[in-house]
């Protein structure tokens, strides 16, 4: 036991070392590290780039698709539709949109959203790109107001976005006409803006048309500018004849508005944003509205006013001085007396009348009536039978006392020319009726009996025979002369033909002919009057036929 010792026992007591495995980190851990870095970076990006999520409500989700439909501003994607839900009460859909990160400052209460689809309206085709690429949501960002997550989407894309510079105005019109959002607005026939929107006022009496005039043209809208409907074709058939007016071919199809500041008026300062203007139906109305100072009268006519319309001109010696504003029938059923009261308004500026008190005005017009001023209905256009009111000083009138009707002065009138003619003709007929036709007939009969006797006498027969012979001779002469006379006759016919052609030329020139015709009618009236007088005199002094006209003074 002592010799055979374990070698290990020989050695001094030694501890077995603790062997530690190499614990260095293997290079393979780089792989998950890289994966982690990439994953972490992606996750970080996803979190930080996550923009605000907003809810926009629309009437319908037509064309929208969750996860696909984009929100675009100036055709750059700024968001994507995440989800589309139907609202609890089924009235609309809620579109959940995840916006891009930077969009937050632009998402305020004033921001608006709409769906862009292909649209053909108001002379424009928009959103054609959406036919291929699908609908997208348009956004008009705004930095005004506070951030919000709930929006109500617009059903129609706004025509003018906040980016366009210019001014908005409101036009008040009695009716919309053919205007539509997008209808053009012209200034000197250049398109300078568009109709943005229209709405009825609360009472439903007026249409407010919102328009937008682009910069730099908005400067031309002044406080006294006038807007009128340049809608389509302005066809006017009035006492002035037929007139066709249009602003442009586009407005011909979709309507439009034009405006101008009349050069006769002084230039007022530029109109402020959202100023209100009146929208006139025609350029003429807009122009006539320059005459703001008006004097109103009534004219009493005994005859029919058929053909006289409201708006018909009131003329004095061919100048328009006013318009007809109203027509009414004044009836007195007791006496069965009817007359038409025509209300006219005379534009003082057209007459360059001085401004004065109403009483002085009345006096002035009374004086004019005393001087023979009378109103008369005249035919302005033979073709259409449109009438107008004409004032003229007349010598042949009886004195008239201007009355009053509904607090307005009533000016006297004389029957129209056609009326005068009619009365003259009828009185002539009456006189004709009173002629002793029967007696004349009787006398004629006895005369004819005498003639009969004369014709049937033998002398007469002889005469007839000799006449026959003479006629035969004449015939012979005629046949010989035929060959010579006919060519001459033909020549005359040709001349007549050219004459007729010339006359055709005169006839087609209309204006002088109408004048001539009117003159002729007046002449005819005079003639009729003369006939009247003649008949009258003949009735009283039938002997004048034989003895000639005697002086009236002699009894």
């Amino acid at each position, binding site marked *: 036991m002592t010799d055979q010792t374990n070698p290990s026992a020989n050695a001094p007591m030694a501890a077995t070392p603790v062997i530690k495995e190499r614990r260095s980190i*293997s290079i*393979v*851990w780089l*792989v*998950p590290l*890289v*994966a*982690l870095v*990439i*994953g972490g970076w*992606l996750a970080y990006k996803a979190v930080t780039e996550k923009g605000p999520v907003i809810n926009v409500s629309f009437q319908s989700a037509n064309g929208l698709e969750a996860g*696909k439909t*984009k929100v675009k501003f100036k055709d750059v994607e700024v968001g994507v539709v995440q989800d589309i839900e139907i609202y609890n009460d089924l009235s609309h859909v809620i579109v959940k949109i995840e916006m891009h990160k930077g969009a937050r400052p632009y998402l305020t209460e004033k921001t608006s959203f709409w769906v862009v689809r292909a649209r053909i309206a108001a002379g424009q085709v928009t959103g054609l*790109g959406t036919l*291929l*690429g*699908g609908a997208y949501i348009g956004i008009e960002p705004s930095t005004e107001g506070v951030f919000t997550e709930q929006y109500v989407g617009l059903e129609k894309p706004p025509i003018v976005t906040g980016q366009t510079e210019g001014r908005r105005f409101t036009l008040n019109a009695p009716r919309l006409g053919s205007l539509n959002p997008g209808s053009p607005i012209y200034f000197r026939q250049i398109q300078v803006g568009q109709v943005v929107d229209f709405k009825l006022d609360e009472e439903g009496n007026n249409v407010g048309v919102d328009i937008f005039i682009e910069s730099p043209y908005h400067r031309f809208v002044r406080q006294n500018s006038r807007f009128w409907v340049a809608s389509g074709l302005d066809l006017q058939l009035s006492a002035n004849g037929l007139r066709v007016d249009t602003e442009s071919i586009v407005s011909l199809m979709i309507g439009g508005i034009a405006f101008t500041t009349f050069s006769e008026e002084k230039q007022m300062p530029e109109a402020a944003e959202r100023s209100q203007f009146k929208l006139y139906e025609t350029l003429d109305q807009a122009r006539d509205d320059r005459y703001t100072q008006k004097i109103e009268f009534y004219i009493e006519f005994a005859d029919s006013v058929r053909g006289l319309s409201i708006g018909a001109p009131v003329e004095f010696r061919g100048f328009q001085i006013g318009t007809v504003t109203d027509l009414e029938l004044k009836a007195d059923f007791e006496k069965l007396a009817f007359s038409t009261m025509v209300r006219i308004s005379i534009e003082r500026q057209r007459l360059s009348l001085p401004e004065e008190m109403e009483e002085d005005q009345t006096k002035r017009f009374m004086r004019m009536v005393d001087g023979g001023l009378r109103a008369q209905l005249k035919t302005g256009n033979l073709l259409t039978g449109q009438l107008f009111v004409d004032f003229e000083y007349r010598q042949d009138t009886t004195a008239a006392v201007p009355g009053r009707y509904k607090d307005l002065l009533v000016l006297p009138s004389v029957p129209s020319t056609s009326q005068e003619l009619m009365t003259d003709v009828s009185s002539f007929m009456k006189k004709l009726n009173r002629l002793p036709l029967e007696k004349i007939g009787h006398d004629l009969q006895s005369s004819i009996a005498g003639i009969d006797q004369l014709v049937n006498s033998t002398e007469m027969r002889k005469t007839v025979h000799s006449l026959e012979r003479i006629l035969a001779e004449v015939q012979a002469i005629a046949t010989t002369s035929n060959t010579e006379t006919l060519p001459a006759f033909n020549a005359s016919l040709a001349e007549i033909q050219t004459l007729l052609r010339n006359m055709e030329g005169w006839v087609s020139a209309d204006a002088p002919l109408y004048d001539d015709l009117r003159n002729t009618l007046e002449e005819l009236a005079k003639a009729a009057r003369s006939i009247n007088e003649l008949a009258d005199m003949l009735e009283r002094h039938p002997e004048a036929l034989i003895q000639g006209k005697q002086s009236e003074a002699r009894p």
Partner: protein
Amino acid sequence: MKTTSLVACHECDLLHQQMDVPIGGVARCARCGSSLYRPKRDSLNRTFALTVSGIIFYVIANIYPFLGFRIGSQIRETTLATGIYELYLQQMSIIATLVFLTVIMVPAVNLLCLLYILIPLKAKRVPPHLAKVFRLYLLLKPWGMMEIFMLGILVAAIKLVKMATIIPGVALFAFMALIFVLAATSVTLDRHLIWDQIKWQ
């Protein structure tokens, strides 16, 4: 210290005594010369590291858009899942199921199996049902066909290039990384190391 155990040759079934082989060396069959096993350096750690990165890539590949197609101004992005769902919607449910199993399901199960095995082993403990889990892993491994799916995608994309602009997504790159990482795990994993953990009577 290893307990002496026997190992059979893959090819000719000759039993050998298992012996320590230096790193980088290889044990060959005495009879047919085919390789019996080669010890792998730091097998557990490396495999675990690759598994962890595999899981990260797997998550990225499944969350982010895989491919985008742009026709005109319309962009259509797909993820792996929406692609499979799309196949299903187009009445190709069998193909959809196949793709789902081979591309999404099998890699996920494989990765989870590896995690289940490796985490306890690194803590020097043996997880319960190690044998069953490891066998499941070995069974499913051939069914992971991400490479084939990738090739299919490439062929389809090249054919579509003329019709649309193709925008490769983040997931596509993660998917490719996942393919390599999964291949690497099968290289670094020492099977004998796992089987040796299991006590048998």
